[in-house]
């Protein structure tokens, strides 16, 4: 009975998404607060959540707009933050590549850090899952996360207008970015890339807003791959 196994796999996906609530709730709240403080309307803030639905890049775009960076730099830098998702997309192909295009197009919309991490782990744990089960699991993980993200961002925006500024809330954004980036520094190559990013960005801080960061990101990626290649040869 494939239909009923798919249903139980879908429910398992929902259950496995529970730990992500601890990440999603504070992040979404914070995005609502930060976006509102930066001067976005409720509709614009929700536009980010629905059309972009990628937290780190949304924070990056709002921070750069707030700094007054040129529009093309805001978009380019935020897209660079999301480039890792091309890697997620590639690694889902062996599992979901045979699904009908409309389902793959829907998976693509929902392909963010949490759904990808949960699905990749589950597909590795149970390699014999059918295509229908793999899809059911993926959609199961996404089902609670997406409405929770929208809702909490909305709550954050409504709270944001009542929280007084200048009480240190300006620093929510840098602290959030550090919280995202620090746990990623797993290898010497990641540490070297992060170090290069900081040094080059500070050296080029005099350039028009955001431009130095783009150059820094390019240098940092090359440094990361160089250190990785070098440490493999050791």
């Amino acid at each position: 009975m494939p239909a009923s196994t798919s249903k139980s796999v879908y429910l398992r996906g929902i259950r496995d998404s529970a730990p992500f609530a601890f990440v999603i709730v504070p992040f979404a709240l914070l995005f609502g607060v930060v976006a509102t403080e930066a001067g976005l309307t409720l509709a614009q803030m929700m536009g980010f959540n629905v059309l972009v639905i990628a937290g780190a890049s949304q924070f990056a775009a709002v921070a750069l707009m707030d700094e007054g960076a040129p529009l093309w730099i805001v978009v380019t830098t935020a897209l660079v933050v999301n480039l890792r998702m091309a890697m997620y997309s590639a690694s889902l192909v062996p599992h979901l590549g045979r699904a009908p295009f409309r389902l793959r197009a829907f998976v693509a919309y929902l392909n963010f850090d949490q759904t990808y991490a949960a699905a990749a782990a589950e597909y590795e744990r149970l390699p014999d899952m059918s295509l229908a089960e793999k899809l059911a699991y993926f959609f199961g993980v996404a089902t609670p996360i997406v409405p929770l993200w929208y809702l909490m961002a909305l709550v954050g925006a409504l709270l944001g207008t009542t929280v007084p500024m200048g009480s240190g809330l300006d620093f929510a954004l840098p602290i959030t970015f550090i919280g995202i980036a620090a746990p990623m520094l797993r290898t010497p190559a990641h540490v070297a890339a992060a170090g290069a990013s900081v040094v080059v960005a500070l050296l080029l801080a005099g350039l028009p807003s955001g431009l130095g960061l783009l150059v820094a990101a390019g240098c940092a990626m090359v440094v990361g791959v160089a250190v990785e290649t070098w440490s493999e040869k050791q």
Partner: protein
Amino acid sequence: MNFTTGEIWTVIVLLGAGTYLIRLSFLGLIGDRQMPPLVMRLLRYTPVAVLPGLVAPLVLWPGATGGEPDLARGLAALAAVAVGLATRNTIWAILAGAVTLFGMLFVLG
């Protein structure tokens, strides 16, 4: 914010479309064709290549103090980095940074 309503929506739509195309790339368009291994390696470093460089100037020259380095904010950033490295957990890192910041702002007045 100096952006007009139209410019803000332009950012949202371009970023949304671009992000969607990145997510769809292999799954929807490229399929099983192999990309050069170097490209896949470079992609792996994109978050750690962008976020630290974005944060560093905000930590050293905070807008809230008119660009003057600030002890409370500097220590809060250090606490977030240390706890993030030690626990590998985003939420603990943010909490450590927030507690340090509000504690220091309270102590320093």
